[in-house]
């Protein structure tokens, strides 16, 4: 059976309904050419996504933060005068060049940002690559990988830079965890395969804003990805802790 490119692309992106997904998965098992085409879609997605992800961790130009706070038009409306000045986010200020921002303005801005966002910038600054391409897949890295490995959803305070949502197992025993990144209002689902956390879906978080608990709720795309993979119920607090302590072993507890 041959499948058109749009179908294979939708499969690679996790956009097919469960019946269709299972059908294609079975066809891929039989046909290496189909598997190769799906892998190509995934690799291109990983390449494009990784290329632009570096923009997230770049120093934020002062003019953009000022514009967001409604100050741009008042002081320097001529486009040329807005250019060039770069400011580091709070928490990364030690490397920042001197700017026209006075301490009072910094304080006002710091107070206006959610504490969680501040902590995120600080923690993420040394290692901005949270998702990296590896052998045609996207895998979690840095602070995201650490949180997926160790953090318990049941013991979060809500101010962590990475918030873990649901933890569950797939039919073949693999563990998957949904997460959200507060500072970039991004949510996703990662599954533990061969020692990596493969990021199977990322999406804009359903709710962004100052309420960190809301930020943990998965977006429709992530929910869809969970529904397509979950076998049984999500793990409770004890199950989650047990899974972590046994190293996310897909064979654990299976006969």
């Amino acid at each position: 059976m041959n499948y058109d490119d749009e179908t294979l692309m939708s499969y690679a992106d996790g956009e097919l309904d469960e019946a269709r997904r299972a059908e294609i998965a079975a066809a891929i098992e039989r046909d290496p050419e189909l598997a190769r085409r799906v892998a190509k879609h995934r690799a291109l997605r990983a390449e494009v996504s990784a290329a632009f992800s570096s923009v997230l961790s770049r120093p934020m130009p002062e003019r953009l933060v000022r514009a967001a706070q409604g100050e741009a038009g008042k002081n320097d409306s001529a486009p040329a005068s807005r250019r060039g000045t770069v400011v580091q986010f709070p928490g990364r200020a030690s490397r920042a060049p001197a700017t026209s921002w006075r301490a009072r303005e910094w304080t006002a801005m710091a107070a206006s940002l959610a504490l969680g966002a501040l902590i995120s910038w600080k923690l993420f600054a040394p290692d901005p690559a949270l998702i990296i391409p590896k052998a045609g897949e996207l895998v979690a890295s840095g602070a995201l990988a650490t949180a997926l490995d160790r953090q318990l959803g049941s013991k979060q305070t809500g101010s962590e830079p990475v918030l873990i949502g649901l933890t569950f197992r797939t039919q073949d025993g693999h563990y998957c965890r949904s997460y959200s990144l507060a500072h970039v209002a991004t949510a996703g689902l990662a599954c533990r395969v061969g020692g990596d956390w493969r990021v199977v879906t990322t999406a804009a978080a359903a709710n962004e804003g100052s309420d960190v608990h809301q930020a943990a709720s998965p977006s429709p795309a992530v929910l869809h990805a969970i529904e397509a993979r979950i076998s049984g119920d999500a793990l409770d607090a004890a199950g989650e802790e047990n899974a972590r302590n046994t190293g996310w072993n897909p064979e654990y507890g299976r006969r």
Partner: protein
Amino acid sequence: MTSVAEEIGDRIVGILPRLRRFARSLSRNQHDADDLTQLVVERALRNQEQFREGANFAGWMYGIMKNAWIDDRRARGRRAEVALPEDSGEHPAVTPDDANTSLWAVSEAMGKLPEEQRLAVALVLVEGMSYKEAAALLEVPIGTLTSRLARGRTALAAALGDPP
């Protein structure tokens, strides 16, 4: 500044990194991307009463950026008929920020895509939206979005030199 304005300002600051990334995926270089981002931020503040509380704030901002980008391209097209673009030569396509060769190569390849395919690729592959979310934002049926995305990917893969 009222407290409502401060609140929307904070929400915008929270999604600025993502807005910049979306803008970067639509623009030739980081400078143009930041100009677009600033325009969108100012437009959002001016029109904040149009945002319906409870709707997806990021989605609303992305919609403003999509419209602003299309407007800007139309305007540049008209200007180009009578004169050189105003910033011609002032900002080369490759800036020091783009020393990241992967970003440069993918950005160049994206720049060759037709507008509608570039938007589809940017929203789904770069911003991680579902097809449904991207289709709603672009105000097209899911089938149309899927077809633009597939054609955009084929062209991107070719431009990046991937084997067919």
